[in-house]
């Protein structure tokens, strides 16, 4: 899809769709939304839909960052506690390493 060829209203529609789509536990949509529309929302000359688009881009960015932080935090917690959680950790593991607790 080429953003250059789209109408502003179309862009807004797309941006909104990505924003709401992200609520379905799809942080990648938010991340893509933030990256894709950041130029439109902040660095392009003013157009009518820009204010709303900014709102979506900012919120998508925050959402994506929160998700990434959450995933990193979980990963750290999980890796640190995997051995001591015993069976629970084994059950939620996809690959259990060999030769270590």
């Amino acid at each position, binding site marked *: 899809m080429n953003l250059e060829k789209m109408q502003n209203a179309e862009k807004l529609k797309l941006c909104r769709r990505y924003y709401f789509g992200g609520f379905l536990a799809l942080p990648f949509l938010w991340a893509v939304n933030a990256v894709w529309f950041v130029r439109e929302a902040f660095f392009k000359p003013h157009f009518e839909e820009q204010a709303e688009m900014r709102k979506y881009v900012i919120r998508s960015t925050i959402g994506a960052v929160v998700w990434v932080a959450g995933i990193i935090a979980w990963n750290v917690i999980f890796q640190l506690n995997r051995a001591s959680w*015993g*069976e629970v950790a*084994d*059950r939620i*593991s*996809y*690959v*259990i390493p*060999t*030769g*270590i*607790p």
Partner: protein
Amino acid sequence: MTYCKLMLKHTCNWKVSENVKLYRIVDYTIDYYGYGALPLPFEINCLNSCHRFMHIIMMSDLVLLMVITYLTSLSGKCFSQSSKVYSLVYQDFAEDTYDKCVRLLNGTHEIGCQSSTEGNTGILVHLNETAVLNKFLESGTRKHYVVLLESSLFERNIMLRLKAKENVQGVIVYEADNFYQRAWSPDLSCTSDRFGLYSNGSYGREYQECNNGAKLWNPLGDGITEESFPFPVFYMRSSSGRDRLINCYKDYNVPEAYPLCSVQMKSHMFGAVDSVTCTRRSNLQNSFTSVGYCDPLGGMNVVTSLQKMTSDVSSKKDSIILVSAALDSRSFMSSFTAPGADMATGFITLLGVANALGQLTKTQKLELSKNIMFILFDGEAFDHMGSTRMMYDMKNGDFPVNRDSEKTQPPPVNLTHVSHIFELGQLGYIRDGVWAHYNPISSKAVLNSVYDAINVLQNLSASVPVQNQSTGIGLVPSSLQTILQHRDVPGVVLTDYDDQFTNRQYFSRFDTLKNILSLRYNQNTTDEQIMDLLQPIAQNLSNIATAIAKMLYLIAGGSHTSTSPLDNITVDQNMMNDLLYCFLYNPNCDLFNEHLPLNSKANLSSISYRRYTSVYTGEVSDYAGISMNILASFTGEKLQNFTECLSKSDDQTVRYFNMNGNRSVAEGVCILSSTFATKALAFPLETKKLQENIAMYGVWTESRWTKTTFRLRLFLLQDELSQGMVLLAGLLVMLTSFATVYVLNEKAAILFNTGIV
């Protein structure tokens, strides 16, 4: 360099015709640090039209080649004419030249050794005496060491000190040429006590933990078998391998200056923590790679009955005499060396007894009011797996065969049917006779039966005196300890020791026939000489076996009249000689060959069996299999005329064994016998109810490993500056070749303006 080749392919269009010319530039490889060698065959086929340009390209490649040569030769080691860089960098030791310690797990612990995934690396240090060891422990400050340890220093305390010194990455044990067999045992000094008779509650408090530590059964045992090491431990068997290691150390590490002789040891194990954890992980099906982590240890017990176990009679109370012995052994490196020659004399004697009693006629056997059952336990060295499982099976009515109402089965046997138990323990070092052991706190009635039985044996055994165990000690470590936990039955264990093992190498790798024979043979000894050397032991064993056989006959209700066969019961000394020779010296012997299944493809090895239980397969192991056939043949009925010698699947009371015999008859020999193989597997591992049973039963598993797990190799370690230089040179070569190819590719139109492109 493969990209150069591709480019040439493209440029010259690869039209093959009559006048094809083949240029071959030497194969070469670049290898930084020896990792990831790239074989680079460089063949150029080209049309004549392309020929001119080929020269240019080849010239550039030759220049490049020279640059590479120059750069890599800076490090001095990394260039070769073919892909032999590996062999310039590493010297591998063949896997069969060394024994390895692996990971074993039980209900609560992991024991044994393992390396990291990629292997442990360290600078070789040779420790051959205590002073050198102490100095190393104080002053060895480099980051990683691999210790080459002289065998006399290989003991628990020293190994634990090496373990505590965290820069030790591995240990290779070797024997010096003049090494003496030292008195040492890797097993616990209070061996096999964990789930023993006196391990529960207040029963026999004065005998708990080896008579409260007052009398240790195995005083020379330091218990290294039960330790866990975070690094690999190998035992270098080959003397040339040992010399290579020692020389490498001498040549490069004395005095310590770069390049240093270093060693990489790999023995990564999959299992960890304990049997509960690794079994759970093996059973988890959500695993992406679905690897196994560990497998249960176990084997098969072999049970045979002197009288045929017909289905129409039910077992009566006190109608069976059990005669048992343990088949297996273990050691620090069980998977590769499992000695226990002294232990083996127990089941060898049992086979002798079975042979003597088996020679009774059919009517004489049926006249006995009590049946005699011989049982060979497997897995006894691991918390008495075999006898523990037998008790479990007996309780469930699954002994000697699993209940199945649709089949004709022998009557189930349990402990109430058993009147006496005789167990044959270590008998290899009979000097002043044998000792009869029993549980001193059995009930009075049981003790009286025990004393009676021992009396009978004492009267029958003139040449090998039988003595009662000393007072103040409990029952020796034995399968009987397991059995007596379920019912107080008269039970006697016969051994060559009284209150501590006569065997001074119990379950160490010196616990071999050689040691029993006081080292009086070497590789030049002939078979005849071995047979001669075996005579005194065979004589002792046949004497005691004869006495035991006669005692069993009498206790089973055999008559003691002038016409009774009692006086004819003898255990042939030659038979004992053969059994000792086959089990402990060379399995490729007549006796074993005669008892192999007919037309069996397997050739018998000439190296005595490793009697390590190993991973449970549901099949009898090699040593148990041959013991089963021998036992069946000794006690069973030899069919003279048989059309087919096949066991019937719906009749489990008897089995037909078709064996080679002495090969004079093509059909071999057919033996009909009530012989059974029962599981010697910890039942919690089968029922998957581990957690609730680990306090009561030994649940042993062995970690998985793969074909490529073990590796031992030597290499020279350069100082850090050289290492950096080599890396830098490598990077430079890589960048130069990128640049060259880029330029050639860009200018291809000019350089190769042939009209073909």
